[in-house]
């Protein structure tokens, strides 16, 4: 049996899904589309059913991709669980009546029932059941109340019998139902004042900056703690003996040893400086970068589940418009700050091809991933805050300028935001964790293998002298345009595949501050890694990828040269 969970966005559908299914959940693309859905299984007393979490939608008139998918999935389902927010029944019933009209067996779930009671909503459940002709169950996905009842009543699901008066619109029918079954208090949601503040023209941006500052402070502190206290320790106690053993087996030297283990520092393996595949190659992405990606996604997923992200989208909409996007496109861009790979993947939610291309390009060029940031902080951190500030400011300018230019020259319609602002809510931790898991998995499954492959390639190239050959070919560009020493070319080229090597090579060159800044910006602007390259190819196609690469190379040369000239002019 195929059960479909449908409902408006933000009614706790995913939380309910987490309650109903076990831990094994699969996320897939709906065939022929980029819209994702989640699938799990549900154990019933006498059978096993597949349960699908469909994209949140307000209606069945397909006006965007997510709604088209919901519509198509409905055709294939056997039973529909329609989840509605009990505190906002009037808003949800529009979809419910459309579903009833579609005629599939269904059951209505009034979620957030505890809040509805708290807010003094009164609903005559039996009357509602009778009127609609389908079973009605109340739940609280946050605490799990009502879930057993929902499971036990699934078999009662049947096609609804409600038919509105002829000649009335759907909304008039919704009003008719509401009038008969409910009296809602005309009371504002307790957090509605804060909700208004967060989209206020002046307070809104202030709150946004404050929230973002808090999030990044959390990432810096907690990420660093995870790195220093947990993963660093784990590598030293668990992994060091293993690689030391391998190194001894290989006789502590030789070409293969250089590739796999790297150079021994004072006769021992140093996870930060040996540069082998199994030493630094594994250590940097897992022990240094992953903790920051993870903590960043903790912060982002909480902001999302609390309901803050749509408000951030409102505040930032007019800026995003200049870049050919709208406010909600901030979400893929922010995911890209963790790791560009899940960021580009999240760009799928954007409606038009133009938007997806712009978002993918901006994420690649101007949104630094945690690996790039760790690298640049490693390079510039010692020289004080000025250098870092210039690097980030440059990236921000690049983001605005490149976005504005693409918006002007790419054809396509201008996207506009139209979004329901849900009340602020306490997130259900399990579904937040599930989201966190999916995003972190984006890095581990889709990025890490390529990162390791990159490490392997660089190490092999390096021992064969290929990197030096490429770098001497490009060194005129690097010395004349970027004002960097010729050897830096090798570091910049290796940086495409290995950030740690780039830092390791640049650090001892004795670059001055302005050279370090130029090198950092160049390293941040071009492809973060080979994994991003692969995912862009998958998401956008090869023609778009070529165009994007062209834009990127142009921006690298222009920004690197411009910054070099500018910094020399002000003689920093």
């Amino acid at each position, binding site marked *: 049996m195929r059960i479909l969970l449908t409902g408006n966005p933000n009614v706790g559908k995913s939380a309910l899904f987490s309650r109903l299914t076990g831990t094994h959940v699969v996320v897939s693309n709906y065939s022929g589309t980029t819209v994702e859905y989640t699938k799990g299984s549900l154990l019933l007393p006498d059978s096993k059913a597949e349960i699908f979490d469909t994209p949140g939608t307000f*209606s069945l008139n397909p*006006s965007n991709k997510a709604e088209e998918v919901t519509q198509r999935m409905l055709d294939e389902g056997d039973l529909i669980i329609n989840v509605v927010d009990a505190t906002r029944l009037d808003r949800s019933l*529009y979809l419910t009546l459309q579903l009833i009209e579609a005629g599939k067996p269904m059951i209505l779930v009034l979620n957030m029932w505890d809040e509805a009671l708290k807010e003094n909503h009164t609903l005559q459940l039996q009357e509602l059941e009778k009127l609609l002709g389908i079973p009605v169950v109340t739940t609280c996905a946050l605490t799990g109340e009502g879930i057993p009842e929902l499971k036990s009543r699934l078999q009662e699901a049947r096609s609804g019998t409600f038919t509105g008066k002829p000649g009335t619109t759907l909304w008039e029918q919704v009003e008719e139902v509401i009038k008969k079954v409910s009296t809602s208090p005309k009371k504002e949601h307790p957090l509605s004042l804060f909700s208004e503040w967060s989209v206020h023209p002046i307070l809104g941006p202030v709150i946004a900056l404050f929230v973002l500052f808090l999030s990044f402070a959390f990432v810096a502190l907690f990420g660093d703690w995870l790195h220093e206290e947990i993963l660093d320790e784990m590598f030293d106690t668990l992994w060091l003996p293993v690689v030391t053993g391998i190194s001894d087996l290989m006789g502590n030297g030789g070409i293969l040893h250089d590739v796999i283990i790297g150079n021994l520092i004072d006769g021992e393996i140093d996870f930060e400086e040996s540069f082998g595949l199994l030493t630094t190659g594994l250590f940097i992405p897992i022990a240094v970068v992953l903790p920051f990606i993870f903590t960043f996604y903790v912060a982002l997923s909480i902001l999302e589940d609390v309901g803050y992200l749509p408000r951030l989208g*409102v505040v930032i909409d007019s800026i995003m418009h200049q870049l050919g996007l709208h*406010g909600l496109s901030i979400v893929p861009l922010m995911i890209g700050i963790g790791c560009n790979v899940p960021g580009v993947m999240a760009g799928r939610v954007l409606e038009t091809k133009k938007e997806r291309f712009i978002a993918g390009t901006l994420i690649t060029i101007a949104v630094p991933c945690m690996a790039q940031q760790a690298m640049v902080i490693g390079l510039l951190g010692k020289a004080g805050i000025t250098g870092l500030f210039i690097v980030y400011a440059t990236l921000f300018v690049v983001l605005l300028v490149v976005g504005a230019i693409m918006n002007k020259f790419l054809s396509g319609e201008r996207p506009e935001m139209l979004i329901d*602002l849900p009340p602020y809510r306490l997130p259900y931790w399990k579904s937040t964790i599930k989201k966190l898991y999916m995003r972190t998995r984006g890095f581990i499954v889709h990025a890490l293998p390529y990162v390791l492959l990159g490490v392997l390639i660089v190490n092999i190239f390096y021992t064969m002298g290929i990197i030096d050959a490429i770098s001497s070919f490009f060194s005129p560009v690097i010395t004349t345009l970027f004002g960097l020493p010729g050897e830096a070319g090798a570091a910049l080229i290796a940086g495409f595949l290995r950030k740690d090597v780039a830092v390791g090579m640049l650090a001892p060159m004795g670059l001055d501050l302005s050279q370090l800044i130029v090198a950092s910006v160049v390293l941040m602007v071009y492809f973060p890694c080979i994994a991003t390259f692969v995912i862009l190819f998958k998401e956008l196609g090869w023609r778009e990828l070529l165009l994007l690469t062209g834009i990127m190379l142009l921006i690298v040369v222009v920004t690197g040269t411009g910054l070099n000239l500018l910094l020399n002019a002000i003689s920093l």
Partner: protein
Amino acid sequence: MTLLDLETKQSGRVVSIEGGRALSHRLDSLGIREGVSISKIGSQFFRGPVIVSVNGHHTALGWGIASRVNVSVSDTNKQTL
């Protein structure tokens, strides 16, 4: 007048929606439809979105969409302007 011309905290009634069926459908599913009472919660600078409340539910409309929703305010409201 359109939603853009409505003052913050002012209420009005939706008279018509300009634009294709797709837009009308999207707005309709969010409860923004002809004849409904609507009040403006706020707006943003630089042609940012307009936030409205219909039946106590808040919706953010991009500037361009807001400019296509025509509203009227009742006479008593006009006098207070």
